[in-house]
């Protein structure tokens, strides 16, 4: 099967590249080994400043609502972190004094929303907090095996959010703000907004233990947009090998399509870091498994780690080597039509940012290069 560009990796980076190329009239395929890091997305596009018009247009066409303001956001464990470009679910405040009195509402039996940590964190900033638990039979009935996770709740919430709002109305005393877990708007994206409108207090959605409901929604929206633009999304497939000749890759083999190779003029590697298996490690080295690209890292394994968990971990910074235009490098030779984007770069390209910012910046950089070629 032949494409203009084949993208390996269906996370944020791969999807942005795919959508941008399809929009420009290119014929692309995305090979995605399972779901991706958007499922653990905090909701803030880290290291991204104000979105340029192109990103704003892309998001808006996909139905993804973002907002931009420099400030701080409330983290699930009650701390505050700097934030700028974020999904609309995420409130950004000028400072940590986000309210006078807060009602924190959790679901009884839901242990992935850390209400006591949130309260303690807010109280540090002189905010009075009250925690209340909602008990909903609908939730108990969907709960399997003692496990209650964000997505399970979110599925019910699309149906019963109004009931939740009613209950909260009864709970509210003189609080000016209600803090709720981010379990709303998984399929019906209007729900968070409608909750905000129907309560007489400000509503702040605080994150939960992953999977991230806003993250999953974003992934669904991006994929839908990509497919609507005619992109071929090969879900659950994995690129296993590339066929290269004199610095040019002409096709890749995938796990599912075995002898049916995917051919293309260019290839984008967006397979992620260690977690996503874009990079692999054994006791002796960290490597890139599909093309065998060069990965810069110290030989002695002892140097890969910082023994202090809280400190920056060197291994998280390792990534594949690229040239200025993000062409990948194999055994010192630059591959002419292979590009690396997203977290597989580690922090080898700090000027492109990190996390979601790196994914988006590097994706657009490569799209620009590709579109300028012809």
């Amino acid at each position, binding site marked *: 099967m032949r494409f203009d560009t084949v993208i390996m990796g269906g996370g944020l980076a791969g999807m942005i590249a795919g959508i941008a190329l399809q929009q420009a009239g290119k014929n692309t395929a995305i090979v995605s080994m399972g779901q991706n890091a958007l499922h653990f*997305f905090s909701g803030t596009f880290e290291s991204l400043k104000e979105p340029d018009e192109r990103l704003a247009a892309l998001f808006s066409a996909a139905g993804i609502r973002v907002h931009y303001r420099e400030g701080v956001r409330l983290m699930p*464990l009650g701390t505050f972190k700097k934030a700028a470009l974020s999904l609309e679910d995420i409130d950004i405040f000028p400072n940590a004094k986000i309210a006078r009195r807060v009602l924190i509402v959790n679901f009884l039996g839901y*242990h992935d929303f850390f209400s006591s*940590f949130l309260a303690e964190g807010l109280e540090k900033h002189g905010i009075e907090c009250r925690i209340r638990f909602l008990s909903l039979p609908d939730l108990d009935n969907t709960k399997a095996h003692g496990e209650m996770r964000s997505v399970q709740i979110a599925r019910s919430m699309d149906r019963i959010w109004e009931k939740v709002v009613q209950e909260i109305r009864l709970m509210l005393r003189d609080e000016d703000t209600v803090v709720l877990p981010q379990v709303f708007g998984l399929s019906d994206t209007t729900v968070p907004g409608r909750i905000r409108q129907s309560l007489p207090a400000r509503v702040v959605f605080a994150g939960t233990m992953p999977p991230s409901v806003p993250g999953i929604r974003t992934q669904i929206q991006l994929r839908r947009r990509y497919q609507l633009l005619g992109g071929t999304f090969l879900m659950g497939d994995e690129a296993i090998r590339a066929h290269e000749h004199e610095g040019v890759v002409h096709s890749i083999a995938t796990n599912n399509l075995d002898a049916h190779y995917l051919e293309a003029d260019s290839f984008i590697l967006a397979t992620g870091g260690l977690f996503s298996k874009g990079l692999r490690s054994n*006791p002796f080295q960290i490597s890139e498994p599909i093309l065998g690209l060069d990965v810069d890292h110290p030989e002695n394994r002892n140097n890969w780690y910082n023994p202090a968990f809280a400190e920056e971990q060197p291994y998280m910074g390792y990534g594949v080597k690229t040239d200025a235009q993000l062409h990948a490098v194999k055994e010192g030779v630059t591959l002419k039509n292979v590009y690396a984007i997203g977290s597989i770069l580690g922090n080898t390209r700090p000027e492109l940012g990190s996390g979601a910012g790196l994914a988006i910046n590097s994706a657009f950089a490569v799209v620009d290069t590709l579109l300028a070629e012809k």
Partner: protein
Amino acid sequence: MNPNEFDVIIIGGGITGAGTQRDCAMRGLRTLLIERSDIATGATGRNHGLLHSGARYAVNDAESAEECIRENMILRRIAAHCIDETDGLFITLPEDDLGYQQTFVDACKKAGIGAEIIDPELAKRLEPSVNPDLIGAVKVPDGSVDPFRLCAANMLDAKLHGGQVRLHTEVTGFIREGDTIKGVHTLNHQTGEETDYYAPITVNSCGIWGQHIAELAGVRVGMFPAKGALLIFAHRVNNMVINRCRKPSNADILVPGDTVCVIGTTSTRIPFEECDNVAVTPDEVTLLITEGAKLAPSLSETRILRAYAGVRPLVSADDDPSGRNISRGIVCLDHEERDGLKGFITITGGKLMTYRLMAEIATDLVCRKLAVNKACTTAETPLPGSEEKSYEAVAQKVWESPTTAQKAAASRMGTRASRIRSANRRDDDLICECEEVSVGEINAAIDRMDVSTLTDLRRRTRVGMGTCQGEFCACRAAGLLAKAHGCVERERKDLADFLQERWKGNFPIGWGDTLREAEYTQWIYKHVLGL
């Protein structure tokens, strides 16, 4: 009466201290156990968890072998819920001397250990993970024992017999009058409180740290700190203990324990000052995997969960640099006799396996000194939780049709699982998904078993001991602890400490899936949750 006065003070919350407290309490003594950290933080919790049949010692140390098999049989009776009767194999590989097998079996028989030479083909059927190249196999009554559970059960029983326990409390000095120890000065590390406790007898059962406690008391006990490194694999590769049938050496025991298996150990002499901070080196990891794969080849492809090391509390006897030839024998020192210091006893040496016997010996001495004439009953009385032999029976009795988490709770708590049967559905909420630990089980541990930190909780419930190493359950459990202790701020720090403690065991084996999981944990806690 002064509430800080006891008949006997026991220093050290390892298995020897816990066992001694239980024995003393069951003989009617008013006991206090003081531990500077948590239960089983020294050698007790840092070994294979092997329920020795004694076979390993049979050839070189007949006395230890006999002690082992006797205690092995006793523990099967009194500690059912801490023990897995797996049986063990001693295998001979092509590079080993098959002639040793007969010497070995003869020595076992002499020590009273039921050792049976079996056909290697049968061995492969009994234990499919075993190295298929084996040329000889002997079946012995080895098993596995959960040292945390065993230690906690002993301490719990001591408490049920009126004993008191002060964890996270360090002995900072002794109250000495003339040639007699009258009590101890302590410092509680969590509250900062300093308290004096009094008793006519103090037992030093601090394992390797006994040397330091003895110094505080003004006497010298020379210990021989020998570090042993071990690796935990992420699932049970083997269901029988696998040993090498040769002279004991490095990394030649693979023990299945609960949901994991453990390979060990190495033996390196270390300076006493390093006892508090032993680290596993990459060379040790390589050696453990290489040697381990000779027992069960699949180990070379099995995910490793963590690396850890313990320090054997051997009492120095000769100049052997490896520490391997020292008898694992029990040493009970009456410092009155030895050093002219009254009211002070040291019980050390020995093994996890022989803790009960050590406790009996120490308690006999305590009783003699206090002129108490009571016989030891610890060999006959089941520990709390061990009144029923199988956890299947327990689970069925408590719940009729138990869920997976309830089955798991029964396997960990034994008959005490009945305490977590509850009409409150909330108690069935799952906190640790890898090991299936429910809210009810965690609250039961917090209520009854002196839990102050997440790490303490882990030792009592296996929370955070599974594949994700606490990535998901730590936060959830922290919520419960914060509620129980009424303090979130402390819990925030505790959570950070817990993650640090997990990482300490992860990075020495930080590659493959372990490193993936570590990266994920970093991401979640720093970027998503904002710790």
